[in-house]
């Protein structure tokens, strides 16, 4: 039996009309002109025939007085012929496919993930020094070599993995964070940050210089970083410099003042925004926009669009949408309600910052006033605040006989 594979075959569906269809079919058979899918019709039949056989029917049609009409053409050849006027579209598709394929052979993005201590820029610079840059062919990249090079070059990198995903080179790394978190111990005092009265004091390290209830001034040493050692007789036998550590709360008053002028410059945006497209390749950028000659003040936003399907396939070209908003300033005057609202909002923000820093407000005498030039929020607040800051010991003359450690003091005592 005949095995006919019609996939990809070029053929025509014809309608054959006339009286002597049997004679027509027998003549076709004798000349090896083959029909298939022959469906009976009132005055003939409908059948499929190859394109080459169709052109051989002319003589038979003439002899048998049959008429052959093409109903439909099937096949790629006819498709190309039908769309021959759009050949440029097909060529364009082909060229774009080739471009995408060729671009896919190169690395267009180097991503570094998991770095905390080393910046991505420094790692990229190192990779560039090893000739691993964007635009390098994928076949020239040896992930194992890059991994070992990175481990050798950066001592804090304890694990690194390099992978190629699409046109991206992704470097995953882990750093040793233990050294990073160590804090250097320095010697120093704790000094008052504000004038006030010491409300409470808990000293963990160092020598307290004041007591609860003492009045202190800004910059005064509250806890000294010099620790003196005494022997059993109460004699001073040595000193050691330490980093003073204590919680000191000061009872103090704080002046508060914020001003708001009567007039302000109000920013008014134009109704129409200008939209344009940006194509960026490397450091070069081209903007596609309609000509617009206004040269006023403007804000520009660029939205870099990255479709989902392109995440793995980075190209050296980036497309973005630029929105330009034009604006101008006009002078406006605050009403009393607006000014009060703005000043209150600022005051609440400042109070929030104080609360975050551990400040307790005992009494609040801040009021809004208006004078000729501005609105003013002014007053005093009675507060309890953490009142110390660290100050390094810059110059300290250690006595010659003074010992710099407890062990030395103990040895003298013995």
């Amino acid at each position: 039996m005949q095995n006919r594979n019609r996939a990809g075959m070029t053929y025509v569906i014809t309608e054959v009309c006339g009286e002597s269809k049997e004679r027509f079919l027998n003549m076709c058979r004798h000349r090896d002109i083959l029909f298939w899918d022959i469906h009976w019709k009132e005055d003939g039949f409908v059948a499929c025939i190859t394109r080459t056989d169709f052109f051989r029917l002319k003589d038979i049609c003439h002899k048998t007085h049959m008429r052959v009409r093409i109903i439909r053409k099937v096949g790629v050849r006819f498709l190309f012929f039908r769309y021959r006027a759009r050949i440029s579209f097909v060529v364009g598709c082909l060229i774009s496919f080739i471009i995408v394929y060729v671009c896919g052979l190169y690395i267009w993005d180097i991503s570094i993930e998991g770095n905390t201590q080393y910046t991505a820029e420094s790692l990229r610079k190192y990779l560039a020094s090893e000739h691993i840059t964007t635009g390098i062919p994928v076949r020239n990249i040896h992930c194992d070599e890059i991994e070992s090079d990175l481990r050798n070059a950066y001592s804090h990198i304890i694990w690194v993995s390099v992978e190629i995903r699409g046109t991206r080179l992704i470097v995953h790394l882990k750093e040793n964070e233990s050294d990073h978190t160590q804090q250097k111990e320095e010697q120093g005092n704790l000094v008052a940050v504000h004038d006030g009265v010491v409300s409470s004091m808990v000293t963990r390290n160092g020598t307290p210089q004041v007591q609860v209830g003492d009045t202190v001034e800004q910059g005064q040493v509250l806890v000294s970083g010099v620790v003196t050692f005494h022997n059993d007789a109460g004699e001073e036998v040595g000193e050691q410099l330490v980093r003073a550590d204590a919680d000191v709360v000061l009872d103090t008053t704080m002046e508060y003042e914020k001003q708001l002028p009567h007039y302000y410059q109000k920013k008014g945006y134009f109704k129409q925004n200008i939209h344009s497209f940006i194509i960026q390749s490397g450091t070069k950028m081209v903007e596609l926009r309609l000509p617009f000659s206004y040269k006023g003040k403007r804000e520009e936003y660029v939205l870099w669009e990255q479709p989902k399907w392109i995440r793995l396939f980075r190209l050296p070209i980036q497309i973005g949408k630029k929105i330009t908003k034009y604006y101008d300033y006009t002078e406006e005057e605050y009403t009393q309600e607006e000014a009060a609202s703005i000043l209150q909002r600022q005051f609440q923000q400042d109070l929030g910052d104080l609360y975050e820093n551990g400040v307790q407000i005992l009494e609040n005498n801040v009021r809004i006033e208006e004078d000729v030039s501005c609105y003013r929020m002014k007053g005093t607040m009675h507060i309890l605040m953490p009142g110390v800051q660290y100050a390094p010991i810059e110059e300290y003359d250690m006595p010659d006989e003074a010992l710099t450690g407890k062990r030395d003091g103990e040895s003298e005592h013995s």
Partner: protein
Amino acid sequence: MRTKISDTLALSKDSVYNLPIITVVGSCEMYIENYQSIVKYDKDLLKIRVQGGMVIIQGKNLDIEFFDSDEIAVKGCIEQVAWS
């Protein structure tokens, strides 16, 4: 002479006498090998000349699936096959 040779060599009759081989698949398909010509093709009737007679196929919606120099395939609702 042909009969003697075919009987002696045990050859099949269809190759020696060019006799038709008719294969019927259910009542929907039919294949005739070694046919000579199509005598009549109608919606309900198909007459095919073969060596030594004619095969008459009666049925409904009879279509010729394909044909070539040796074989013809008929498709449709075959009701009766007669030899004349």
